[in-house]
């Protein structure tokens, strides 16, 4: 029996190296921390070394003190643990396999005044195993119409329903959410103020926005508030595109797309079924573009907690280009306002983003 005590990274903690620094993610607590690349190497190598052996390789006392403080941090936050050397191989690594029981896992559907194809679309999505659904009402939305479409969504066994509707001063949104308790979020666009309220025991978010967020050009934002420090997300990110994988969209005219912001249509819902659209050769072309293939993102330490966008790119001619709406520079580890970057000005105009309300 060995008496040597070595350190190990908890199998559930995820390491991602960037070009300048690395990220250690604790998905069970939903936390993540940036660490220097030198520390990343020490942890990632998983040599059966003790902390004192590792400290001994430091060049001077100052470096050893810094490394010691990092070890204290890692132990304090339960990112690494100590064990006897002869037991160190007993901790099985986690498998990063990803799958969900669905051909299409999430959908965005825009509807107009009649919502004529909504019933049929919902039925088709159910057959495809769709679990999460975003409904965007592109026209005026009196309470009677809103109740009508929510009645159609009721009983669809969807895990998540997000609703984007225009502001109507006569509608009692809180009462509406209480009645239709399957709603996960309701976003009221063109509202007089910006406000966020959590309802139904925090299971639903009622958001008022002064902007018209129904406009797809508002989408594709890359920001820290949208990071997902989650094992399922991390596993998906290693193999697939974290926005477009198993996604389908139907625009207000019934055109079937990968995303409302992308121009390519795979047919109209009035003419073909969703399954027929999915079977077309190019429908899945974005599904396997992961962050390790995307320029700049592949050097970013946040790439596996982040979500991608293939609709708005820094270089529209290159499908592997960095998302336009990302203001993070992994080479300097700084965030900036992407919309004020002079190098992005022409592209912003090209996409028509400059003119949205």
């Amino acid at each position, binding site marked *: 029996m060995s*008496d*040597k*005590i070595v350190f190990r990274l908890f199998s559930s903690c995820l390491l991602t190296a960037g070009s300048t620094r690395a990220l250690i993610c604790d998905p*069970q607590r939903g936390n993540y921390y940036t660490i220097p690349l030198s520390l990343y190497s020490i942890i990632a190598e998983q040599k059966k070394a*003790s*902390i*004192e*052996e590792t400290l001994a390789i430091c060049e001077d006392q100052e470096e050893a003190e810094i490394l010691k403080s990092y070890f*204290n941090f890692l*132990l*304090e936050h*339960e990112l690494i*643990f*100590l*064990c*006897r050397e002869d*037991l160190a191989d007993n901790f099985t690594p986690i498998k990063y396999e990803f799958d*969900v029981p669905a051909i299409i*896992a*999430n*959908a*965005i559907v825009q509807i107009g005044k009649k919502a004529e194809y909504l019933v049929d679309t919902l039925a088709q999505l159910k057959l495809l195993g769709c*679990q*999460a*659904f*975003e409904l965007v009402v592109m026209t005026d939305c009196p309470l009677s119409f809103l109740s009508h479409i929510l009645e159609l969504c009721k009983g669809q066994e969807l*895990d*998540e329903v*997000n609703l*984007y509707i225009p502001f109507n001063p006569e509608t009692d949104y809180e009462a509406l959410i209480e009645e239709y308790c399957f709603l*996960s979020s309701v*976003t009221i666009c063109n509202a007089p103020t910006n406000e966020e309220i959590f309802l139904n025991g925090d299971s639903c978010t009622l958001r008022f926005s002064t902007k018209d*967020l129904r406009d797809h050009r*508002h*989408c*594709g*934002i*890359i*920001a820290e508030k*949208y990071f*997902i420090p*989650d094992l*399922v*997300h991390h596993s*998906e990110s290693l193999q697939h595109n974290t926005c477009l994988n198993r*996604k389908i969209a139907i625009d207000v005219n019934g055109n079937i797309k990968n995303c409302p912001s992308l121009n390519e249509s795979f047919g109209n819902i009035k003419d073909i079924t969703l399954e027929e659209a999915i079977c077309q050769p190019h429908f899945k072309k974005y599904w396997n573009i992961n962050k390790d293939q995307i320029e700049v993102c592949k050097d970013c330490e946040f790439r596996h907690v982040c*979500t991608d*966008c293939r609709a708005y790119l820094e270089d529209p001619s290159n499908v592997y280009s960095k998302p336009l709406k990302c203001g993070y520079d992994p080479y300097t580890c700084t965030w900036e306002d992407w919309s004020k970057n002079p190098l992005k000005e022409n592209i912003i105009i090209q996409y028509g983003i400059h003119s949205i309300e």
Partner: protein
Amino acid sequence: MNNKMHLKEGLLINTESLPFSVRLWTATSVQIPFKGPREVKSFGTREYKYKKYYKYISRRG
């Protein structure tokens, strides 16, 4: 065997010298002291996994 491992003098690291309690894995079960209530979440349930996975169908701002 004492199920709480105390490191003897001369070993490579003495966990008791650290400024916080360190969980040490041994071949026998270790009684981990109860640290107080943690945030309640339905980990492992279908709702939790799917809610987390599909948190952002779109990101509009």
